[in-house]
């Protein structure tokens, strides 16, 4: 049996790309045979892709990193053109992410059967679904950085088209335009960074880049550009504003696909930091400019003066600019303060490169958490509210990664990274369930506005319970899966600085407050006569939501299964067993 699985695993990487890619083309023709045959074809192809993903996952956990070569061997003397090869280097972290991706896509497809049924152009929807799946899986399996960019573009273009799927709605088309604008700018900067690295090392393979990395001036520039561009795609504040616009205007299953695409970009951040640059960051020792904290204090004071001047002259723009300046420079100060001498007397900061980048990521992640929950609190559109909550959850992931990077080379780094990767897994399921429930509410009532909804618990107990499970999990409440990953993050960030842990916990409490408001507004209270006829939610949609709710409960009660078999191998793949 294991020999059969190993043989299947040998061809799993190309099949995981080829199957959805070819299905994207053929689904349009299969659609002519009828809706049921098309749905069966979609599910069959995704389940087949999922089967190969799970087989590959088993193979990597059993036999180690899997390499697949596309292209020539290079030892044929009759070849005239240079050898062009692309390697897929699949380690435990790649299969961890690809398993999450394909599992979510299967649930989305099941949900979409009935949710998208009454729309026109549904075959195009499934084409785009297969394309985005191809892109995401390609990003997670490839070992070539330029190939990563290609799959990033495929994902972005398919996602933009999906966001704008409801072309009759102006907000959807606008959201799709914003998505493609932001994605295009980010992807171009990624390409520029790749060009810098290629110019330095004449290589595009990530493993070769990691071995050759000298962390010179050009390499630092490339790192910053890659980090900023991929962090924008992942939704780090203050480059996140496109995220609620896109999530809020897309159909519910598309919102989950875009969340998964965001996680694929987050995968890119981790790959760049831990695999390509990894140990090179440790080797850099620098008497980082003692001017940095002083500079941030001076700039903050300038910003305060700008605000005061704006108040005197009654100019709103000056006040706003000044406040933004204070916010930015405070973050800068906090980031450098974390690295400062423990006695607090010296302004000289000494750190390695990983600590500086880790500090910046920690500062921005705290901002992400706070902005996400504060904006979620004032939303009246249910989808935008969940989008902002998803943004806050991205903040937790970056907080864990920043902590891991700051403490790189220690067991604390390992613990923080475990919490971060476990949180990726849990967040995908929790946010996925919430978006699906939102879609179900829209399906029932044709409403997204919290002010117009109410008393839905009288109409549907199943959706009420499913939403309660989702809100409980995303708020990080025991005994569900959200708590399990958040407790690891709280404990690891506490070791760096207790304030980080406090902010993270306050963020979770505020998420709970946000969802208590939503639960009350949507489900509690008397039946509203103002709501139009309540449509019954189909069984396939309830099944899709039920699968995610079941996973939330299961992994909440048995978190160590996920940690031992999925997360720890991924962490070891990234940190090299440190």
């Amino acid at each position: 049996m294991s020999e059969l699985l190993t043989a299947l695993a040998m061809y799993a990487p190309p099949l995981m790309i080829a199957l959805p890619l070819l299905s994207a083309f053929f689904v349009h023709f299969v659609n002519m045979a009828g809706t049921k045959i098309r749905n069966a074809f979609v599910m069959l192809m995704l389940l087949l892709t999922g089967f190969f993903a799970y087989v590959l996952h088993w193979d990597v956990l059993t036999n180690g990193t899997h390499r697949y070569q596309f292209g020539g061997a290079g030892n044929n003397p009759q070849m005239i053109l240079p050898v062009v090869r692309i390697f897929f280097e699949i380690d435990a972290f790649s299969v961890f992410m690809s398993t999450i991706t394909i599992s979510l896509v299967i649930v989305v497809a099941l949900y979409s059967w009935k949710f998208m049924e009454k729309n026109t152009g549904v075959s195009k929807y499934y084409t785009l679904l297969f394309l985005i799946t191809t892109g995401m899986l390609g990003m997670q399996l490839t070992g070539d950085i330029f190939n990563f960019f290609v799959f990033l573009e495929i994902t972005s273009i398919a996602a933009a088209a999906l966001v704008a799927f409801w072309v009759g709605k102006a907000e959807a088309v606008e959201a799709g335009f914003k998505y493609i604008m932001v994605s295009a700018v980010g992807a171009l900067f990624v390409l520029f960074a790749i060009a810098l690295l290629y110019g330095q090392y004449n290589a595009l393979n990530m493993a070769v880049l990691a071995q050759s990395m000298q962390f010179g001036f050009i390499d630092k520039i490339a790192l910053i550009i890659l980090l900023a561009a991929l962090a924008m795609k992942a939704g780090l504040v203050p480059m996140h504003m496109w995220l609620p616009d896109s999530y809020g205007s897309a159909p519910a299953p598309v919102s989950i696909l875009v969340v998964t695409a965001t996680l694929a970009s987050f995968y890119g951040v981790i790959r760049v930091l831990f695999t390509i640059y990894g140990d090179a960051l440790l080797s850099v020792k620098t008497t980082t400019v003692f001017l940095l904290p002083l500079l941030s204090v001076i700039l903050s004071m300038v910003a305060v003066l700008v605000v005061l001047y704006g108040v005197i002259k009654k100019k709103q723009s000056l006040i706003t600019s000044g406040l933004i300046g204070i916010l930015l420079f405070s973050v800068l100060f906090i980031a450098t303060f974390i690295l400062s001498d423990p006695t607090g007397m010296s302004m000289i900061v000494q750190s390695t490169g990983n600590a500086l980048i880790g500090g910046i990521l920690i500062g921005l992640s705290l901002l992400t958490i706070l902005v996400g929950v504060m904006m979620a609190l004032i939303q009246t559109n249910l989808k935008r509210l969940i989008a902002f909550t998803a943004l806050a959850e991205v903040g937790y992931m970056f907080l864990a990664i920043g902590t891991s990077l700051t403490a790189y080379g220690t067991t604390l780094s390992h613990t923080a990274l475990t919490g971060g990767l476990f949180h990726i897994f849990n967040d995908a399921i929790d946010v996925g369930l919430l978006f699906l429930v939102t879609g179900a509410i829209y399906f029932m009532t044709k409403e997204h506005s919290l002010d117009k909804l109410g008393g839905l618990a009288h109409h549907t107990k199943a959706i009420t319970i499913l939403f309660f499970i989702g809100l409980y999990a995303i708020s990080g409440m025991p005994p569900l899966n959200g708590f399990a990953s958040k407790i690891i993050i709280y404990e690891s960030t506490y070791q760096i600085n207790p304030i980080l842990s406090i902010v993270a916990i306050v963020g979770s409490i505020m998420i709970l407050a946000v969802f208590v408001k939503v639960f009350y507004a949507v489900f509690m209270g008397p039946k509203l006569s103002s709501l139009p006829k309540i449509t019954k939610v189909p069984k396939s949609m309830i099944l899709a939501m039920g699968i995610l709710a079941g996973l939330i409960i299961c992994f909440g009660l048995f978190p160590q299964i996920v940690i031992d078999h999925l997360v720890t191998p991924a962490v070891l793949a990234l940190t090299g067993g440190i």
Partner: protein
Amino acid sequence: MFSIITESGFWNPIIWVLSFIVIFLIMYILRSFGNNKFKKQGEKTKVFLSGNPEYASDDMHIKSSNLYWGFTKVLDWVYTVLKRMHNGDVRDYILWFVIIMGTLLLLGVML
């Protein structure tokens, strides 16, 4: 399989669930000492609004935009800034990206 061992201790959801069940049972037993002869009837359990008539259900439901009003009012100065950031203009979104990348590049030069 059941416990996450952390540096500060451990988290075991099964123990949590069992504790919750035990506490629930204790609460239920305490509740059972109450008056079991009470029946909901007459005016006792109806809503009392100082003698005023009960509103229609649509008018009684508190809308979500009214919740947490105090919190959002006190932090109005923060929300003014945040709302201006989320103005929907994609040019401003790209501008933020450029600002952050510029700031990070300046910091990166110091690495």
